[in-house]
């Protein structure tokens, strides 16, 4: 079974045909070449595949592509500004040494974005809760928590 789906991706309208068993992750990486979104476990455990759908962070590896019909999807590629300037969170991750191999980073940043939009001044516990679905197997969690805290404190959140 195949169907045409239409949705907004990083601000642009996209329309394409996909198969009924395609997950959003596969749609993004293999059909649309947006490889910033990663596949870790493929089973909803690690958060490497996190994207925002209508502002909520979700695991795209378990999210059927058919379900994004009419919705707004934001991936890590959609965070940069018009002149390719880094988003506050991206800058903060870079400046605070929160990136080691970088595999978990796109998911971490998108979960952090969803968190800060809900709660612009999270305390340490709220940050931990907000990022609980994102595993870093380089285990640089302290720097990651710092980066989110600093992004919230120093810059405020831009968008």
């Amino acid at each position: 079974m195949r169907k045409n789906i239409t949705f907004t991706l990083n601000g642009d309208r996209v329309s394409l045909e996909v198969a009924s068993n395609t997950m959003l992750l596969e749609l993004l990486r293999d059909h649309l070449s947006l490889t910033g979104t990663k596949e870790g476990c493929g089973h909803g455990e690690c958060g490497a595949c996190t994207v925002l759908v209508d502002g909520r962070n979700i695991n795209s590896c378990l999210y059927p592509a058919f379900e994004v019909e009419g919705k707004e999807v934001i991936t890590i590629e959609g965070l940069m500004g018009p002149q390719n300037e880094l988003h506050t969170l991206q800058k903060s991750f870079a400046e605070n040494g929160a990136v080691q191999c970088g595999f978990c980073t796109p998911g971490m940043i998108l979960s952090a974005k969803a968190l800060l939009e809900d709660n612009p001044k999270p305390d340490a516990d709220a940050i931990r809760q907000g990022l609980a679905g994102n595993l870093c197997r380089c285990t640089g969690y302290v720097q990651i928590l710092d980066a989110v805290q600093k992004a919230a404190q120093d810059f405020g959140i831009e968008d």
Partner: protein
Amino acid sequence: MHFNYYRPESLNQAFELMEQSSGQSRYIAGGTDLMVQIKQGLTRAENLISLRQISELQGIEEDDSGVLIKGMTLLRDIETDPLVRDLAPVLQQAVASLANVQVRNVATLGGNLVNASPAGDSIPALLVLDSRLVLAGPEGERTLPLSDFFLGPGQTRLQPLEILKAVKIPAPFENSRAAFSKIGRSAKDLALVNAAVLIRLEETTCSFCRLAAGAVGPTPQRLEQAEALITGRTINTELLETLEARVRQTVSPISDLRAGEAYRRDLAGTLVKRCIRQAIAFKTED
């Protein structure tokens, strides 16, 4: 992994799709469990009928007897809903303990119930709240107590075409307090054991209570013997210790990869006691 995927917009369309589809068909809610099983080849389905587009299954409302939560309400929305905070805070406590934000942003209350995992975190909380379920089928609706819904692991009283439409939670009666507690391998993991308690105290006497626990038998369950033990008695350390021992004796958990049977028994006793302490502490704080 091949399947057709349908997105009906009404209950009637969903029933029709289920009735007319040939081969193995399943309704799917948020899919945080079912989709994993399908990807891993543990469950096969030729047709998945998604319930996410059905507006009759969305929303949280106040009704004449308390609060009504529609089946496809996201766990994340329950966690942050002001009406649920007022009328059923113990459910929020249970739901917030489940997995992580990404999962709670797609997992639904109906999915957590219909999945019928012995460890489903919303279930003990809804059991102590004496919740009822509204099930919808092509012939109409019926209501049944949550305590009658589960038949065994993954098994419920839902008929093949039926869909869990809503959960009805009665408003709390005066002076009652409730609490939920769980232990997993890590804080947000699947529960090794979970428990919930609702208790009404008059001075220090328990005049009414409901106790429930999950992952200590084939279905989450009320702990009636333990309830009888403390009802009408003064709650003190000694009674709580007797209660703990009673819970340990009456539950019938299994051993699996996550925990042994004896450990689960111990946990059940501890958690029920902990819930009561928590619920009572809430009261004295006021």
